[in-house]
């Protein structure tokens, strides 16, 4: 039988074997699953999501009822349609209302302009035609459509691209 290990000072070192020999009981070993593969997979998933994620954004629809001008038609009489022209100005877009250029620096100004135009019709059913030039980015068209609906125009149409 091998001699019990000793400390440098010649005393018997306390080891598992020596404890067992003295009748000291260990607590039962805890259940310890190997979590290394779990951590590996989790990190792989995390890496995949960090690199490939594109956060979901809340989207919705802007409802439109369209007059029989220029494109989609819904029939019904059209009363003095207003024309809103959108031109690509390079850095953004410039607006023309009824053929006259209007200096609008923000979408809120466009809304106020359209709202005052709608108010001037004194409740008559009036339609507006948005005429974007071919090179206008779709985002600006959506902006104009949104402000026209906000200004309570009942019928909004799009002019055909020439």
């Amino acid at each position, binding site marked *: 039988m091998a001699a019990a290990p000793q400390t440098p*000072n010649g*005393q018997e*070192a*306390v*080891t598992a074997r020596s404890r067992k020999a003295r009748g000291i009981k260990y607590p039962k070993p805890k259940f310890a699953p190997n*979590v290394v593969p*779990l*951590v590996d997979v*989790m*990190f792989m998933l*995390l890496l995949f*999501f*960090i690199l*490939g*994620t*594109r*956060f*979901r*954004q*809340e*989207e*919705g*629809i*802007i*409802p*439109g*009822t*369209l007059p029989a001008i*220029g*494109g*989609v*038609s*819904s*029939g019904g009489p059209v009363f003095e349609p207003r024309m809103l022209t*959108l031109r690509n100005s390079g850095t*953004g877009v410039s607006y023309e209302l009824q053929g006259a250029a209007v200096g609008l620096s*923000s*979408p*809120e100004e466009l*809304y106020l302009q359209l709202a005052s135009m709608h108010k001037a019709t004194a409740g008559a059913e009036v339609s507006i035609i948005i005429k*974007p*030039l*071919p*090179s*206008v*980015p*779709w*985002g*600006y*068209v*959506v*902006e104009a*459509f*949104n*402000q026209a*609906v*906000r200004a309570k125009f009942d019928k909004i149409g*799009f002019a*055909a*691209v020439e």
Partner: protein
Amino acid sequence: MPKTVFKLSDQPAGDISFNVVPLVDVTVMLVMFFILTTEVASKTYAVLELYRPHQSIAVKVEKGVGDTPNRVIVNILSKDATPSANRQDPTLAAEAKEYQIDGQPIMIGDKETLVRTFRARKADAKSLKFKEEDFSVEIRGDKDVNYMYVAPILRAAAEADIAKMNITALQGAGGV
């Protein structure tokens, strides 16, 4: 002076163990966060850059499989598929790559296919007892794509006698 006796561990020297439970907890939480917030492309809703208008009045519609029998959603994809913040070339982003209806690609300018698809979808909706006048076309376009690529959809909708048109936009305050 009493001699100090060091009690040595039963484990061999150098065997260090970490408590990985908090690490696993945090990692699972992060994975769950990403799973819940990631935008997943579907056949009906392609992944593209939508516009958020100033004081958007966009109304939320529930997404789901088979939720669109009475409308046809036309996705307009930009040639630049990267997120708008990373787009370097505005000319490339302004060009449309293709239209997509329920995952089916349609060539840009192919008005005949658009009209045929609209008519077929309208007939399907009618057979499902939906009112013909309620059928709508929904334009879901990339915000940087030029209007010239959207206009053929409007013309096709007019030819297919579709009365209603909706535009997809992001909700919230937004603005340029």
